[in-house]
């Protein structure tokens, strides 16, 4: 599963050369990560694809020095934002002067909310979304062990008033990655980013 982009110019610039906008053909990896950290998740714009842990690698191809290989681990299988995220990633690196980019999808290890940075969790809370708790280890399949959300949900704090007097309304909120809760203290509804 790769997604190759045709060069923007008829001929790719030589190494070290600058395009008419003054961009290097091989911007530093640091500059690339910085640019990608500005790409928001379209459904949770408060956090970037880097902070979410979706972006797993950025490196130059071993054979083609002007080909940038970006490795991405998508969140949920059916997440409708995935294709837009891929497009935004491509646009972000092309804007820095990268001539060719290939986006690779890596499925294993599967994406987990444990990859989310502390900064991302703070931003989520400020945005009004309760950040995910630690991912429970799957235990034996019984009624209790099969329910990651019910076990984690006991400690979900309201992102508005901080109360832990909260209640699960539905396992799925505005998107597959969030559950719908309500706060019994301030009575506000809110989304909880599910541990995954």
């Amino acid at each position, binding site marked *: *599963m790769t997604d190759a982009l045709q060069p923007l110019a008829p001929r790719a610039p030589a190494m070290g050369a600058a395009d008419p906008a003054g961009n290097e053909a091989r911007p530093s990896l640091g500059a690339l990560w910085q640019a990608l950290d500005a790409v928001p998740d379209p459904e949770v714009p408060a956090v970037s694809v880097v902070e979410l842990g979706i972006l797993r690698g950025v490196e130059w191809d071993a054979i083609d020095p002007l080909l940038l290989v970006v490795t991405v681990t998508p969140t*949920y*299988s*059916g*997440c*409708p934002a995935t294709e837009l995220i891929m497009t935004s990633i491509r646009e972000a690196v092309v804007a820095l002067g990268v001539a060719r980019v290939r986006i690779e999808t890596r*499925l*294993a*290890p*599967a*994406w*987990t909310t444990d990859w989310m940075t502390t900064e991302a969790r703070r931003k989520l809370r400020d945005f009004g979304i309760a950040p995910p708790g630690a991912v429970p280890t*799957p235990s034996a*399949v*019984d*009624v209790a062990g*099969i*329910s*990651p*959300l*019910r076990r984690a949900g006991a400690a979900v704090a309201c992102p508005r008033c901080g109360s832990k007097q909260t209640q699960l*309304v*539905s*396992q*799925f*909120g*505005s*998107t*597959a990655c969030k559950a*719908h809760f309500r706060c019994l203290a301030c009575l506000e509804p809110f989304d909880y980013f*599910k541990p*995954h």
Partner: protein
Amino acid sequence: MGRMTRDEQLFEYLLHLGDSPLILAQRLGEWVGRGPVLEEDIAQTNVGLDLLGQARLWLSYAGEVEARCRRPGRDEDALAFLRESGQFRNLLLVEQPNGSFADTTARQFLFDAWHLLLLRALAKSGDATIAGIAAKAAKEAAYHVERSGDWVIRLGDGTEDSHAKMQAAIDDLWTYTGEMFTPDAIEPPLIEAGIAADVRSLAAPWRQHVDAVFATATLKAPDATFMQQGGKRGVHTEHLGHLLAQMQVLQRSHPGARW
């Protein structure tokens, strides 16, 4: 079947893994905008989206394996939209009509409990791609079975009317559950090779979970023992053809159409 190569067996097995979530996703799609309450309309649609995403991964891999053994190999779209009902390998359970919300919930719960166990078993597959897809999908299925189990309890232990509808739904669908634990002819060699999951080993834990939820829900597992078979070898109930007519109409009427 004895003449099939390993890749040919794997291709058929991957169709089975992909077709069940695909067909169930299509059924759940029929509920969009018609859920009993807004939250459940959204939740059910999200479950359908997860299943559709999983089906895409399985069918894309099926196409890659097909290319290794014959012809050019089809992509996920060709496999989903251009096969006839006799070529689909999904469980009979998932093609059953939506019926009432109780019927849909019973179908979902019986499937979800099996699906999670299957995916957790497949996460240990010797085939790295199968293991990767399954490990990812299992995390999603854990939320599905929690939700559908909650609804079985809520309706079963609800009003007299909701209890009666939930029990009737389970009684109607029970005959389609045996197939989930019966390996098809292509499965034994793949099980032996450590690639496929041995579904016979899932029966006991599945029943344990179903019984526990039913007990809380004041529902009863039917005594009936006759089980319908055939989905995995392409012998379907009358409902699949009608479902495919709707799902495939665009590609059949406008071959190759894209947007």
